[in-house]
C-alpha cells in the first residue's frame, strides 16, 4: 500500500488497491490523474504529446493526450469505476527552454509550446468525455514530480524552486 509505482514517459498505470502512482521530473509532459473517489480506483498517464494524429500507439496509449485519457477511462471502468463518477487532476506542461530567438519566426513548428498544447489536448478530451477537471498545476518553466494517492485523489506536487504543494 505504501509502495510508490513510477509511471514513466508515455506510460500509464491504474490501481484499485489504494496504491500511490508517481511521475518524476515532469517537464513539458503532463501527468493526468483520473479517479473515482467512491470506488477508490485511480490511474495516472504521463502524456508527452497532444495529438496522436492517427499514429499507431496501441502499445503506448499514454503517450498522446487523446489516446491516454480515453484509454485510462476504459481501464478504470473495467476496474469498477463509475464512468459518471470520475474526476481528473493534471500537473506539468511547462516550457523548460525558451525557444531560441532565431527560431522565433519558425515557432509554428509542431513542437513549439508543447507543454501548453499538451494541456489543451487533455482538456479537450476531458470535455468530450464529460470528466470534471478538479485540480490543475500546469505551465511555467519548472519541472515537477507528482505523487497521486489513487484512493483519495490527493496529489503532492514537488518542484525544486517552489517546494511542495498539494492538489
Amino acid at each position, binding site marked *: 500500500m505504501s509502495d510508490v509505482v513510477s509511471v*514513466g*514517459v*508515455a*506510460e500509464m498505470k491504474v490501481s484499485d488497491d489504494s496504491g500511490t502512482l508517481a511521475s*518524476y*521530473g*515532469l*517537464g*513539458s*509532459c503532463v501527468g493526468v490523474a483520473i479517479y473515482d473517489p467512491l470506488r477508490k480506483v485511480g490511474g495516472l498517464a*504521463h502524456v*508527452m*504529446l497532444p495529438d496522436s494524429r492517427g*499514429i499507431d500507439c496501441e*502499445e*503506448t496509449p499514454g*503517450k498522446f493526450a487523446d489516446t491516454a485519457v480515453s484509454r485510462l477511462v476504459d481501464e478504470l471502468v473495467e476496474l469498477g469505476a463509475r464512468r459518471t463518477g470520475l474526476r481528473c487532476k493534471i500537473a506539468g506542461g*511547462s516550457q*523548460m*527552454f*525558451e*525557444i*531560441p*530567438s*532565431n*527560431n522565433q519566426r519558425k515557432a509554428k513548428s*509542431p*513542437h513549439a509550446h*508543447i507543454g501548453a498544447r499538451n494541456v489543451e489536448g487533455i482538456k479537450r478530451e476531458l470535455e468530450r468525455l464529460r470528466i470534471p477537471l478538479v485540480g490543475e498545476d500546469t505551465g511555467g*518553466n*519548472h*519541472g*515537477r*514530480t507528482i505523487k497521486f494517492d489513487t484512493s483519495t485523489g490527493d496529489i503532492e506536487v514537488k*518542484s*525544486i*524552486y517552489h517546494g511542495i504543494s498539494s492538489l
Partner: protein
Amino acid sequence: MARGGKSGELSARQIDALAEAGNIGAGNASIALSQMVGKKIGLSVPRASLLPLASVPELAGGPEVPVAGIYMRVKGDCPGSILLLLERESAISLADMMIASSMSVAGDMAVRKSALEETSSILSGAYLNSLGELTGLFFKPSVPGFAMDMAGAILEQVLVDAAESEDHVLMVETAFEISGQLIHGHLVFFPDLGTLDAILERLGVPFE
C-alpha cells in the same frame, strides 16, 4: 517515413559506427574545452544506444537530480538534438572557471547562464564540426537554450523533438570530467530516428 524509421531495424554494426563517430566528435570537443579552461579533460568511452522513452529521464542519475541542461536543436543533413548536461554543482563550478578566465564577475546566475551557453556552443560546435568533417554532411545547431531544473524535465524536451512516431530514441553519449575540479558532465547527441540514412551511408554502414 524513411527506412530505418523503426528503431528495431538498426544493426549493432550501425550503432557501433555511430558510437565511433561520437568518439571523434567528443575528442574534438574535449580539446576545445581543455583550451578554454586550461585543464586536462577526461573522457569516457562513448555509448550509443537505443533507449525506450521511459528510460531517457534516468540518463543523468535519475529524473529528479538537479542539473543544468543546455540544449540545441540541430538541423541539416542529420537532424537531431544535442544536449550538454551538468550536475548543478558542476555547472556552477564550470561557469565560474569560464568567467574567472575572461572577466571578474563570478557568482551571478545570469552571468553563469550565459557562460554555460557559450561553453555549450563551443563544445557542440566542435563536436558537430568533426562529425561534419568525418561524414561530409552539414550540421547546423540552433542558438542554445538553458534550463537548471530536474533532469527528467530537461530530457523530456529531447523526447518531444525526437520521438513523435517512435517508442525509442537513439542516444550517442560521452561523459567527461575536468581533472582535479570535480566537474562531471555529459555531452549527448540524439540523432532523429527516421533520418539516419545519410549519416549511416557516409559511415559505411548503410541500411541494406
